[in-house]
């Protein structure tokens, strides 16, 4: 029970009035970000990151991770009341959440959503508490080839688990790596891909990319649709909450299944969005109420919300234990670690005990605080959505510009942000995934370093990727993931003849 005492110590670190205050501030800012169109977990945290430069790392991570929890909670509000997913991972919540709101059961739907978010997060945090130290201890023995194989697995999983064209996933990832290479080469000191422009020497900061791709891109998309918000009103009182809570234990199987789906998709970089869809699909298939899904079933809200929150939380495990983030938001938090002067990776658990366990303790407390805050303040946040878009849009552009500027105090970054915004808009419309681009931009240098080191050791022999069982199996798994779309197609072709007979025409 070494972890348990470490966790208690973590609680002791976090439970200062200052940190509790920051937790509330973080959650409220986070819900706000989750509710507003154009601001989401990743770019919200990126914009607010500069505010924490002067804080201690522990306070900073407490506030930033709470913004993340808040954004996860906030996405559900817009989905249920307005049928507009504030975040991509809450799209599946609209399927049953909005019909419930239309039937006047908005209170139940919101309570169910928030509570299952909390449950999903709790299961994931429990998993992190006990698994992360083990993974970190294990990873201490990793050398450069092992790290590169894990990077390889991360990126190949995008191809294997992503929907849509594998070529687009690869292209998006390649662009990320190419942008990461711009600037000074860390090994030889040569300038790469700068084309003589001194401004490019700094390279592209992924925070700017995140703010532009997700923030400005999202604003352009919402503008194109000419959004008119028309929402249901929500009243939550203690009675509704209590009655919904009495109903929820009935769905424990769904909750458990969704948590596990979420945890799996969060650790591997599948992410919260596919996790929520997958879990909704599974619940629909296995539940007794399955056929009624889509007409306003509480269970149809429970499944995606649990999975999304579990995935969002467990994306922090690889970030903490290996220094490899599982989602764009985790990547931004990782960027924060570097700025605060901490070296992410397995050594974090040895050298920065207070920080790591403080963060884990704040995950427990932050989600509890989040649940309380959202249950009590829903009407307030719902009213924000009634502010017309022609006020919201310029304010969000301004917030993004400030966020982009503060990263390096560079004017040019505001232009880059607008450029990334246009790229984000076009890529979203054409179904290019953005997460691989961001992760490649963050991890590009490190992946390249570990690759070069591995190649140095082996004098250019790729055989080092299979030099021992551990690195060999990770590499092989990664390659299987890479060609998975082809395998899936082949399997599908084999099964093809049976399918029409089993499935009635729908």
């Amino acid at each position, binding site marked *: 029970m070494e972890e348990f005492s470490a966790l208690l110590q973590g609680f002791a670190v976090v439970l200062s009035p200052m940190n509790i205050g920051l937790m509330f501030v973080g959650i409220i800012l986070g819900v706000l970000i989750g509710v507003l169109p154009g601001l989401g977990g990743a770019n919200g945290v990126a914009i607010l990151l500069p505010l924490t430069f002067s804080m201690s790392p522990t306070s900073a991570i407490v506030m930033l991770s709470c913004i993340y929890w808040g954004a996860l909670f906030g996405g559900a509000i817009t989905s249920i009341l307005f049928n507009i997913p504030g975040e991509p991972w809450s799209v599946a919540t609209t399927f049953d959440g909005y019909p419930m709101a239309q039937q006047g059961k908005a209170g139940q739907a919101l309570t169910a959503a928030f509570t299952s978010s909390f449950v999903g997060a709790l299961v994931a945090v429990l998993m992190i508490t006990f698994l992360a130290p083990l993974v970190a201890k294990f990873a201490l023995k990793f050398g450069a080839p092992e790290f590169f194989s894990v990077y390889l697995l991360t990126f190949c999983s995008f191809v294997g688990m992503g929907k849509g064209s594998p*070529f687009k996933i*690869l*292209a998006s990832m390649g662009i990320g790596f190419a942008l990461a290479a711009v600037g000074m080469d860390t090994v030889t000191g040569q300038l790469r891909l700068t084309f003589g422009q001194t401004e490019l020497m700094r390279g592209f900061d992924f925070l700017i990319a995140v703010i532009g791709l997700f923030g400005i891109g999202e604003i352009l998309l919402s503008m194109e649709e000419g959004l008119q918000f028309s929402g249901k009103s929500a009243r939550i009182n203690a009675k509704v909450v209590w009655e919904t809570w009495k109903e929820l234990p009935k769905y424990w199987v769904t909750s458990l299944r969704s948590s596990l789906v979420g945890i799996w998709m969060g650790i591997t970089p599948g992410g919260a969005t596919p996790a929520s869809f997958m879990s909704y699909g599974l619940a629909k298939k296995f539940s007794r109420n399955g056929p009624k899904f889509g007409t306003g079933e509480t269970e149809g809200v429970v499944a995606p919300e649990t999975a999304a929150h579990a995935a969002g939380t467990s994306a922090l495990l690889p970030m903490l234990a290996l220094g490899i983030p599982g989602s764009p938001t985790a990547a931004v938090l990782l960027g924060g670690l570097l700025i605060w002067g901490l070296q992410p990776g397995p050594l974090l658990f040895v050298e920065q005990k207070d920080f790591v366990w403080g963060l884990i303790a704040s995950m427990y407390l932050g989600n509890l605080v989040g649940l309380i805050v959202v249950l009590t303040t829903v009407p307030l946040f719902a009213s924000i959505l009634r502010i017309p878009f022609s006020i919201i849009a*310029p304010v969000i552009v*301004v917030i993004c510009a400030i966020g982009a500027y503060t990263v390096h105090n560079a*004017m040019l970054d505001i232009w880059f942000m607008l450029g990334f915004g246009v790229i984000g808009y076009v890529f979203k419309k*054409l179904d290019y995934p953005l997460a691989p681009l961001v992760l490649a931009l963050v991890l590009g240098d490190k992946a390249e370093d570990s690759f070069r080191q591995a190649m140095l050791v082996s004098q*250019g022999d790729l055989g080092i990727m299979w030099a021992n069982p551990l690195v060999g199996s990770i590499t092989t798994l990664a390659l299987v993931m890479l060609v998975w779309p082809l395998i899936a197609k082949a399997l599908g072709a084999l099964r093809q003849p049976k399918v029409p007979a089993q499935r009635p025409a729908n």
Partner: protein
Amino acid sequence: MSDPSESGTESPTLARNCTVDVVVAAIVFLLGAVVVVEARRLGAGWTSDGPGAGYFPFYIGLVICISALGIMVQARLPKSRDDGPFVDREQMGRVLQVLVPAAIYALAVWGLGLYIASALYIALFMIVLGKYPVVKSVVLAVGVNVVFFLMFEVWFKVPLYKGALDPLHFLGY
């Protein structure tokens, strides 16, 4: 993907998905080609002390080029071809309504600094595009920026860009 209610009656489609797909893929291919050429120049081979500076980018460039070609093929093949509308004139207009002012705003930030430019931007956006009364727009725009000012300069002590002309110099921050 031919929904008669969507095309024709409302506003003309400016571009189809498959066309834009090919154009974007071509740009991506160019980018990949630039990376490959530049990586070759830097030294994509093996130097005396290990892989050269261009070693890794070279392969990244190759991956980009190959996937761009793949996207082009997929966009042309009848099976995966997507003839849906990418954007129609009205949508494009709305997008430019945000994008063009945002670009002008970025120029204004350079000269006037973040606070003044932001206040002007929000106020003008509300008056011109949102058709709000002038007084309401100005009050809101100034209010938002006062909040930002207090939050960044005073509370979190993060100085923001005051512009080449520095019109807020008199405040002493």
